Structures are given as structure tokens and as C-alpha cells.
């Protein structure tokens, strides 16, 4: 039987969810989706980029990733709202739940995108387009926001189809429609083709997906190696990957933060690293894994990136140990340039149940520290992140657990439910 794959994509997800929340839960009268508006970060904290924008803001040329000042220049009347990740999490879960009503095999691809394997559901819902419209309309009537659905026989083509005209539409892109619907598109529209590749392809005289599909594979191989084969296959609509329900395990855990001021003091930087180590290690411990490789990344005030990594003697997930490694890396990496962003990334994971190699020179009392971490995790789980913190963070502008989503951005108006 031929496969039937849907790719479902929420139209300007964060903005739509914000709009529906304000309309139906807070009872506001303006629909953010109907005016030039965007969800954006906090300029004062230098998190000032556009995360999602409305269709009418798009008409002014506002793009996701633009800085807030750029967006305001393009569209002076733009209404900006702060993000609330807890709400997006709720909306995303409800969205996935509806998809699971329709298909036993749903793969969540991101917070606002999913693949559904709809093979063999014709007997239930009729033709594929009818089924897609059913899902689309159910989401819009029950949850209040709109989606685009791409219908095809594999994941790649379905994803390409969901990106056609928006919003609130169903598109098909079966292999026989490729020539008409996909090949005329500019090559940068192809999934997996980024800015760097686009530039390279343009110098080769390849401007549309069709041109890429008809290019000699050996030419692509010589320029792009293995990746050339992948984009060649994609341009020809070939994608052998299957929709999988199981989540693929994390390959690494990392957190980074943009600091509200430029850091030029070593002790401050190390404090930031400690607060990052707190959250990264808490995540490692939560999933009962330990990391063998620790990496530190920095971005200086001129946006130059740099990173440095090392392998630990034995895998670990204790905050102190990871922080110590991070500090060593930081000392080797940093030349004193003021920094705007710091990050810790851990990888080469091993299961937390593995025996730890005892170290004769363990001056850090690993066992004690790991027990302490466990106790702290339990306290924080029960009484909140701020119930216990290292004394060094007292009266300190640096939050003791940096990375991920800060608490003030999670909840709408800092409070679930109703605005007071």
C-alpha cells in the first residue's frame, strides 16, 4: 500500500496561541492575528528578536529573527507582546492530542509541527484531502487556531507542501505533482538548504529546486560530499525516513544565556557558568544520564563565536564537577574580550546507572556532592527552583539557574489563567 504522510504546521504558532489566549481566556477584543503584531523578547535584556509575527506584519517585511528595533523601523505601529512559554506548551500538547485522535503514528517534530502517518485510514475518513481538512477544521474549531497541512507519500514532500500558501489550507504534493508544484520554487525553499548552501548553489548556476534535481549527482558530490546526495534526493522528492512515535534520545544537553550586560570580569563569567551548570546538570540528573564531554561556548560583544571542549576522566552529572571543567575550559578560551553570551554543552552521554570509576585523586568528594545534588533536586522539585540556592548567588544580579526559559517568560502575566 502506498504511504500517506501528513505534515501539520501551526500558522505563526506563538502569535496564534497568544492571540487565541487573549481573545478567549482573557476576553480581549482585538485579535492579534488581524493587526500587525509580533511576539518578541525583552529589549532591555537584549533578548530582543521577533519570535513570530502576524500575516499583516509580514506584509511590512518583518521577518522571524529580526531585532525588535528593525521590526519597529519597518512597521512603526507593530504591537509587540512578550512570550509565554507555559501557554505554548499547553497549546502544543492539545494540538498533538487531536492529531493522535486521527492517527496511531504521530511524530512531534517541534513545538508546532508534527508528522502523521495516515496510511490505511481511507476506510475511516475517505480521501486524504478530506481527512486533512477534517483535522484542520477540528483544530480550528476546538482550539481556535489554524494550521496548514501538507499531504504526500513521504515526510519531505509533505513538509514542502505544508509550506505552500498559508494560512488555514491543505496542499498535496505527490511525486507526480513535483514538477508542477515544487521544481519551479527557488532552491533555498528546499528543506535542509540553508543560507550557505544557497550561495554555493547559486555560484554553480543552480537557482531552482528543479535545476538541482536535474544536476549531475557527481557534481554535487564533489562540492558538497555526502550532503550533496541528500539535497539531490530531496530535490527529486526522495526521502526514505519513516514517521516514528518514539522520541529519539538526546545526544547532548546544553544551555546558554545572553547576559543583560557585557561581561568583562572573570568571576562574573564563572558565576554565569555556575548558574548554567546548575540547570544543565539538573537536566542530566532528571534523565539519569551522565556526560563525558563538556564544552563551553562564548559570544563576544562583536558577535564572534568561539568554543572549547574537553573529555572528563569519568562521566559526571554533578554541578560542581561540570562547573570546574567549564571554568578550566573558559580560562583556556577567553582572552578578556567583553562577552554577551555564555553556554555550556555536554555530550557523549552514558546511562546514570553505570558504575563510576573511582578516582584516587578525587579531591572534590564526588559521592558527597552527588548526594547533595540529589537532595537539592528533590527540594527544588517540591518547593520551586528558588527554594534553595548557593549562597554565592545571594544579592547577586545573576539568577542562580540560568538557561532554558526564565520563569517570567513562562506564565502569561506571571500567573496562570486570568489577568487581574
Amino acid at each position, binding site marked *: 500500500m502506498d504511504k500517506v504522510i501528513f505534515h501539520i504546521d501551526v500558522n505563526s504558532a506563538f502569535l496564534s*496561541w497568544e492571540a*487565541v*489566549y487573549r*481573545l*478567549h*481566556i*482573557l*476576553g*480581549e*477584543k482585538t485579535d492579534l492575528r488581524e493587526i500587525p503584531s509580533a511576539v518578541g523578547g525583552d529589549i532591555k535584556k537584549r533578548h530582543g528578536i521577533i519570535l513570530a509575527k502576524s500575516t499583516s506584519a509580514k506584509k511590512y517585511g518583518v521577518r522571524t529573527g529580526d531585532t525588535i528595533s528593525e521590526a519597529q523601523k519597518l512597521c512603526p505601529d507593530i504591537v509587540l507582546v512578550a512570550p509565554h512559554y507555559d*501557554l505554548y506548551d*499547553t*497549546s*502544543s*500538547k*492539545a*494540538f498533538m492530542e487531536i492529531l493522535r485522535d486521527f492517527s496511531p503514528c504521530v511524530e512531534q517534530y517541534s513545538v508546532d509541527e508534527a508528522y502523521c502517518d495516515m496510511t490505511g485510514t481511507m476506510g475511516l475518513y475517505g480521501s486524504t484531502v478530506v481527512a486533512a481538512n477534517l483535522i484542520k477544521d477540528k483544530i480550528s474549531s*476546538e*482550539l*481556535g*487556531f489554524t494550521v496548514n497541512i501538507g499531504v504526500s507519500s513521504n515526510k519531505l514532500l509533505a513538509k514542502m507542501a505544508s509550506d505552500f500558501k498559508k494560512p488555514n489550507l491543505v496542499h498535496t504534493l505527490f511525486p507526480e505533482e513535483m514538477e508542477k508544484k515544487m521544481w519551479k520554487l527557488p532552491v533555498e525553499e528546499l528543506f535542509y538548504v540553508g543560507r550557505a548552501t544557497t550561495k554555493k548553489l547559486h555560484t554553480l548556476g543552480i537557482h531552482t529546486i528543479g535545476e538541482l534535481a536535474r544536476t549531475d549527482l557527481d557534481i554535487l558530490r564533489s562540492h558538497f560530499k555526502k550532503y550533496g546526495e541528500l539535497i539531490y534526493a530531496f530535490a527529486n522528492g526522495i526521502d526514505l525516513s519513516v514517521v516514528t512515535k518514539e522520541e529519539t534520545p538526546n545526544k547532548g544537553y546544553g544551555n546558554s544565556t545572553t547576559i543583560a550586560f557585557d561581561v568583562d570580569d572573570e568571576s562574573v563569567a564563572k558565576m554565569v557558568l555556575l548558574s548554567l551548570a546548575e540547570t544543565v546538570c539538573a537536566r542530566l540528573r532528571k534523565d539519569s544520564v551522565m556526560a563525558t564531554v563538556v564544552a563551553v561556548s562564548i559570544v563576544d560583544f562583536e558577535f564572534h563565536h568561539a568554543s572549547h571542549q574537553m573529555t572528563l576522566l569519568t562521566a559526571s552529572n554533578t554541578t560542581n564537577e561540570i562547573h570546574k571543567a567549564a571554568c578550566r575550559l573558559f580560562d583556556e578560551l577567553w582572552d578578556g574580550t567583553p562577552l554577551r553570551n555564555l553556554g555550556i554543552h555536554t555530550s557523549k552521554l552514558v546511562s546514570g546507572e553505570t558504575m563510576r570509576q573511582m578516582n584516587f585523586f578525587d579531591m572534590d568528594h564526588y559521592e558527597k556532592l552527588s548526594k547533595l545534588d540529589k537532595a537539592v533536586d528533590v527540594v527544588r522539585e517540591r518547593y520551586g527552583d528558588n527554594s534553595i540556592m548557593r549562597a554565592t548567588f545571594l544579592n547577586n544580579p545573576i539568577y542562580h539557574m540560568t538557561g532554558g526559559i526564565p520563569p517570567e517568560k513562562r506564565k502569561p502575566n506571571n500567573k*496562570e*489563567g*486570568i*489577568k*487581574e
Partner: protein
Amino acid sequence: MNHMPVDVIATFNVQGKIKPNYIRLEDDSHALQTYKIESIVYSKEEKYAGVSVLLFCCNIKLGNCMQMINIKYHIKTHQWVMVNELHETKETPECL
């Protein structure tokens, strides 16, 4: 006008069904008045943006006139709000 948080007395039966009985609203002189919910016209569950809410369309008696109001119960936060819809904002102020 946004939805307004309100105080409600409700009963919860053994099947988990929720029924609002009394609602407390401000009158013209900003004094709190308790009104009996005379009847529930209909109720339904909403899930806009994934937030579970129970909507009750009910009648309360204001002096001699019956007034239809919509109130919502937020399942997660256990809060009650009164819905201020356009057609209602026209009527409610003078009645209350």
C-alpha cells in the same frame, strides 16, 4: 473589556459535575451583591489554545428582570470569570 474574575459558590456532585449556585457581583454603588443562579441554560467545555474551561450560560434575577450571563470556570486554576461580551456590555451596566 476583559473577562472579570468573580466569586462563585458551586456544588460538585459525585459524578464530578459542577454546578454554579450563587455569584457575587458589584452593583452600581460598587457594593458586593450575591445573586442566585436561577437556571443553567447550557454548559459546554472549551479548549481554546489548549486551556480547559467550562462555560456556563445561566440566568440570574436582577430585581424583576432575568439576566442571562456567561461565566467560565478555569479547570487548571480553579478561577471563575464573567464573560463580557459585546451584546452584554450594552445591557449589564444599567441592570446591575
